[in-house]
């Protein structure tokens, strides 16, 4: 049996000064997203969005901030494709109407991990590119238009869409076509850490085609009964290998899974 505080704590410094404030995502005026499937943009690993002060980061209290796993080294020569998401315990990423104010739960899990903002920032720097669908991109633009800033910093961002969308910065590129070719021939040779950040259709296709190496699935301590599922376009069941379990002080539990069969695919790629 694991006590919660022992769960895979690798390099997470406890923040004795961390306190809960109202500076978190759910109280943001933009919380009612137009495309609920795309709320990942706000609640996933993208603390660029929050990075005005270290205090604000600390106030996140682990919620919505990626797990910090030093086991994943920065100089890993093998590229990794990660799918990241945050959901209610009953598997929803937003209510039917797209609202996500429930992301702010009030649980306090004694002994759970807290996050050192400097470490969060360092971890985010290990992400080399983001991949997203068009609606996630549009949601990011709408946040920016309302003064909330661009969520993905200077990190290369690839938008999968055949649509003509505004290209607001040099680091944004558009792609339309075969996803497997794009990931294996374009992204993997150029980037180590490749993060799919939504929506559900893009991430499901990535999994379905066997392109993902890992899934990071964070569960919040709440049942919302009904809502938008993330993997509803998966089309088949997919088995995964549990790699890491981490419980946070916020009551959030993050499960990190390796995708079965990826090792074989990696070999083929380098032939």
């Amino acid at each position, binding site marked *: *049996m*694991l006590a*919660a505080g022992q*769960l895979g704590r690798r390099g997470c410094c406890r923040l004795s000064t961390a306190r809960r404030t109202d500076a978190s995502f759910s109280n943001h005026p933009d919380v009612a997203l137009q495309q609920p499937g795309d709320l990942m943009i706000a609640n996933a690993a993208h603390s660029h969005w929050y990075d005005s002060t270290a205090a604000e980061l600390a106030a996140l209290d682990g919620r919505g901030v990626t797990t910090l796993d030093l086991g994943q080294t920065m100089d890993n020569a093998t590229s990794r494709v990660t799918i990241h998401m945050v*959901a*209610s*315990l*009953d*598997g*929803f990423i937003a*209510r039917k109407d797209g609202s996500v104010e*429930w992301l702010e*739960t*009030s*649980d*306090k*899990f004694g002994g*759970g991990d807290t996050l050192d903002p400097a470490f969060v920032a360092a971890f985010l720097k290990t992400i080399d590119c983001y991949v997203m669908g068009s609606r996630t991109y549009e949601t990011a633009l709408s946040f920016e238009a309302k003064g909330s800033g661009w969520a993905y910093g200077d990190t290369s961002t690839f938008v999968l869409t055949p649509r003509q969308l505004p290209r607001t910065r040099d680091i944004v590129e558009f792609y339309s076509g075969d996803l497997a070719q794009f990931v294996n021939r374009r992204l993997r040779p150029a980037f180590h850490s490749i993060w799919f950040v939504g929506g559900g259709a893009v991430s*499901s296709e990535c*999994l379905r085609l066997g392109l993902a190496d890992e*899934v990071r*699935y964070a*569960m919040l*301590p*709440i*049942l*919302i*009964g*009904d809502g938008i*599922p*993330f*993997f*509803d*376009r*998966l*089309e*088949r*069941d*997919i*088995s*995964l*290998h*549990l790699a890491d*379990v981490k*419980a946070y002080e916020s*009551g959030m*539990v993050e*499960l990190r*899974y390796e995708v079965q069969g990826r090792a074989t695919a990696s070999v083929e790629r380098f032939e």
Partner: protein
Amino acid sequence: MNITVYLASSINGMISNKANIPNWLSQEYGQGLLAICQRMKAVVMGETTYEILIPDHLPLKDEGTLIVLTHDTATEPLQANVVFTDETPPGIVRILESRGHREAVIIGGTQTVSEFVKSGLVNELYLVVEPVLFGAGLPLLKGVDADYEMTLLEVQKLNTHSVQLHYRLMESMNK
């Protein structure tokens, strides 16, 4: 009465796959289920769960009470400790209390769990998260239109791949 829900789910919160075949469940989940049923000695389940378990896998044999929610209450049960009922959750609690039970575990499925959650009668939830994503299947809850915040009590790895999450349910909140 203290009521606990004990379920296995996919990573994305589904308690059964599309075909409703329990071939994805770990041995440790089965052991955990049996242990909690035998500890509490009162088990509540829906008709579909009952039909998956009979004749050999009902978690109580000679002792305690197995409540099965069904509209077909006239059928003769296979075991003397099985009670077929179409009562509401408060009615089921009364049946259990009249038989001397002070705690009970609900073991599935979606409809039974949802009815009890809606009635505000569930105190604790165990979810054994198995290492699979389901493209389609039965949800943990259905037709529940309130939120239930929970307190995480414990996280436990049951084996290499299965994680048991244990929560206490807080009072429901209107959306």
